[in-house]
């Protein structure tokens, strides 16, 4: 009796797991209750699945760019200025080179570099009074991690600004520094793409020369090869005269990324769209010093590595400025981007999948149909083959299914199309435990044992085998879960839940049903097992 109660309790708990408490009666209320509890994967619901790569080395590079300026200023202040501080190799963003410090102040330079930069950099002296600072691996890692996290946050804010999309945005385990974005029920790829991809990396650089008609001409102007402290960039604004032209800029920007506090789309005196930006206080001070010292030179506003506009510095600028030459959309986008926070690095697309709602609906219909047909076939067969015991197996099977779905409801696991296949497989494999036990009981009965003893022995012997078979299948399910992605993971989840449910139903519940039948039977009366 206690066992019966336990089984009923388990049944109720898992039915609750599937449906929760439906708000009302009737099929539609139950259906809503069901879809509230059991989450459908993107392949069933339809939606967008994106895998993005964060180009983290850009974040590292931005950090060293920043350090170059600080090193220069620190050495200057200490009274032993270097001839130049630069990043020698664009492919090695973690490396800074200091050239030509005063030969008589080696000790001072070393102690200054060690005390200010020793925590993040490995300081090494080189011949000819040169030094290199190499960013430590732990520091590189922490910058990369922060860049990925910040990208996740920023993309989240941007997507939420589009509407109520219930996005999943998380780190993706397939490779390093990748982000998974899932937008259930959304099929408007181009809109999402635009908003995610605009890195809106806004920077202001000092112009070394330009415009030039070709990249080669630009390189020629600085002696054929572009020195490490400079960079050639194409024009990307909408000024007709400048289309296809190139500029030579200082590689390290004067203000960049986080220095911008806000931007608003506006209209200039001729009615053309532009954007006003506001710098943060620190950056404003720095920019004021820089512009006062460089009146007459040119500055370039660079958006996503393309020169947006180049203009002369006519007066010192503190914290406000205007960017012209943007289209209306670009101006609006830019201000949205700057307000939601800039991405710390640019984003590359690695994978895009879109599942339309019609495909998802079709998949559900077919998956459920296949499950029902498969299940009916198995149940009918069990009845024919095992007679009374077949009812026992069928009850266990149904309970198995309820527990499996209940598990999914409780754990918030996602049901995918391969997950439905997992449910169907669970039906097939779940019946295996029953078959093992029943066959063993039949064997014992044939050997002349009494029904009670046969049931006891049958369960006892089959138990060892059942444990072994379940463990091996769970091993493969766990490995699938660890390695799999998306839908395949959903399959692994249903498969393992199904196996656990099966241990309970096939062994405990089925045993209990046998025992209660045996109790009611007369001594020596036969057991209905086909």
């Amino acid at each position, binding site marked *: 009796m206690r066992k019966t109660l336990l089984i009923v309790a388990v049944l109720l708990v898992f039915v609750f797991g599937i449906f929760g408490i439906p708000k009302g009666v009737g099929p539609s209320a139950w259906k809503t209750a069901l879809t509230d509890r059991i989450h459908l994967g993107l392949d069933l619901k339809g939606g967008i699945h994106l895998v993005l790569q964060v180009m983290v080395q850009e974040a590292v590079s931005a950090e060293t760019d920043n350090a170059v300026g600080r090193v220069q200023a620190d050495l200057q202040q200490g009274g032993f200025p270097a001839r130049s501080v630069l990043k020698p190799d664009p492919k090695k963003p973690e490396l800074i080179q200091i050239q030509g410090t005063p030969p008589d102040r080696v000790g001072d330079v070393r102690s200054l570099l060690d005390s200010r930069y020793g925590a993040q950099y490995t300081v090494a002296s080189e011949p000819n009074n040169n030094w290199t600072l190499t960013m430590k691996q732990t520091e590189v890692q922490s910058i990369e991690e922060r860049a990925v996290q910040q990208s996740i946050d920023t993309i989240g804010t941007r997507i939420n600004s589009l509407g109520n999309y219930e996005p999943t945005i998380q780190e993706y385990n397939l490779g390093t520094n990748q982000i998974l974005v899932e937008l259930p029920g959304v099929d408007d790829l181009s809109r999402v793409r635009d908003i995610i991809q605009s890195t809106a990396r806004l920077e202001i650089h000092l112009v070394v020369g330009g415009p030039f008609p070709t990249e080669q001409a630009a390189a020629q102007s600085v002696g054929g090869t572009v020195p490490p402290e400079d960079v050639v960039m194409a024009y990307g604004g909408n000024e007709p005269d400048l289309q296809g032209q190139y500029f030579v800029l200082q590689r390290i920007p004067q203000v960049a990324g986080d220095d911008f506090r806000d931007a608003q789309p506006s209209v200039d005196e001729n009615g053309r769209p532009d954007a006003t930006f506001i710098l943060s206080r620190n950056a404003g001070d720095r920019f004021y010093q820089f512009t006062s010292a460089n009146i007459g030179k040119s500055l370039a506003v660079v958006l996503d590595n393309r020169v947006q506009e180049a203009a002369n510095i006519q007066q010192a600028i503190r914290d406000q400025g205007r960017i012209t030459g943007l289209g209306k959309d670009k101006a609006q986008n830019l201000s949205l981007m700057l307000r939601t926070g800039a991405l710390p690095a640019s984003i590359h697309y690695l994978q895009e999948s879109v599942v*339309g*709602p019609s495909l998802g609906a079709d998949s559900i219909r077919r998956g459920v149909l296949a499950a029902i047909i498969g299940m009916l076939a198995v149940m009918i067969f069990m009845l024919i083959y095992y007679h009374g015991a077949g009812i026992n197996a069928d009850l266990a099977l149904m309970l198995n299914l309820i527990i499996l779905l209940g598990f999914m409801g409780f754990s918030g696991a996602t049901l995918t199309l*391969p997950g439905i296949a997992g449910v169907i*497989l669970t039906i097939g494999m779940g019946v*295996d435990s029953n078959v093992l036990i029943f*066959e063993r009981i039949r064997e014992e009965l044939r050997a002349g044992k009494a029904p009670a003893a046969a049931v006891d022995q049958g369960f006892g012997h089959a138990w060892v085998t059942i444990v072994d078979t379940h463990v091996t299948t769970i091993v493969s399910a766990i490995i699938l879960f660890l390695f799999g992605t998306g839908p395949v993971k959903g399959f692994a989840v249903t498969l393992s839940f199904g196996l656990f449910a099966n241990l309970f139903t096939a062994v405990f519940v089925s045993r209990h049903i046998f025992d209660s039948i045996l109790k009611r039977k007369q001594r020596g009366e036969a057991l209905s097992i086909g």
Partner: protein
Amino acid sequence: MELFRDVNVDWLGKKWYFLAFSLVFSVAGVLSILFWHGIKLGIDFRGGTLVYVQFDQPPNPDRIRQAMDRAGIHDSRIVPYGTAAQKQVAISLAQKETQESALDTGRQTIVQALNTNYSSGGGANQGKVDLDNASQGTLAQFLQQNDPEHLASIGGGAQKYAEQAAAILNHRDHDLDGIFSSIDQLNGVADPAVVGLLKQSAYLSGFHVFAADIIGPQVGAALRKQALMATLYSLAGMLVYLWFRFELIYGVAAVVAVFHDTLITVGAFSLSNQEITLTVIAAILTLIGYSMNDTIVVFDRIRENLRISRRETLTNVVNRSINQTLSRTVLTSGLTFLTVLSLYLFGGEVLHGFSFALVIGILIGTYSSIAVAAPMLVAYQDWRAKRGKKAVLPAGKKARV
């Protein structure tokens, strides 16, 4: 009802037939992999672009291919998808046209090519909205801009038109299976004013892109490696478990049997020229677990029988164990096969590869526990006997449960 009662088959006596059978199938598969079809990887492993399109009229692959050729895509693969009644095709592009910097261009080119070749009206559609492919956001925006119900002054337009757009697309995607055959189908679904506007300034392209997969080369390579590692780890995991539960030789025999199943299943994909995708790998991993189940049931019985009858030859014990479990083996496999067959027949196109792998795998997996794993135990013992070692197979550690 009982199928097998007191069966007494000399399974081990047929080991040469089994060996021949296994060899024929494995070698056929391997030959096909090496010299004929090769292993055809799905785009999730290869990288590439795959666009699924549904048509209003039965699609003609040649016409689609010409459309692609004209758009400058020359190595597209166009295969029918699902049943003929569904009028669907899958158009795929190889990896070299799918670059990470411009992941989306392949898809866009395909859609544009279809648009110029299939839409009625051609250039007259400029500025009109394509109801067959419009997303909810686009349609809602379109309605709001044109404001057929003149709500701009009253307010509430945004919500109203979003609802109308949702209703229209819900009708398309759920009631009409993804495609309109005429804008008249909207009568009664959306407000008359909205339908009136759409009749004038919307068009039907005659096709509907219902899904797309674009996989960059980097992800393809990572997934390839992942699938291989998952399969190897899962084999290794089982070897270790069987070693712990039985003896090393049991583990080795079981893993060889499972490897045999995997090889034949992959071979079957190559022979039938089907693509191996991520879900197929999931099926193969399931099949590994399943075939292992079957083998363990037989091994468990061998271990049990070895303990009670020490004088009997191993050949007899193994034969008897197989016979005793035969009924269970056939029943379980039969029932699982039934469910998988139901999946194969009714589960739809997306699960086709998955269920095909399982249909083959369950047949082979059942066969291999009897015909590969068990004979290996006997062969191992014979080999030990020849080398003058103790000629008794260790009965395995005592079952701990």
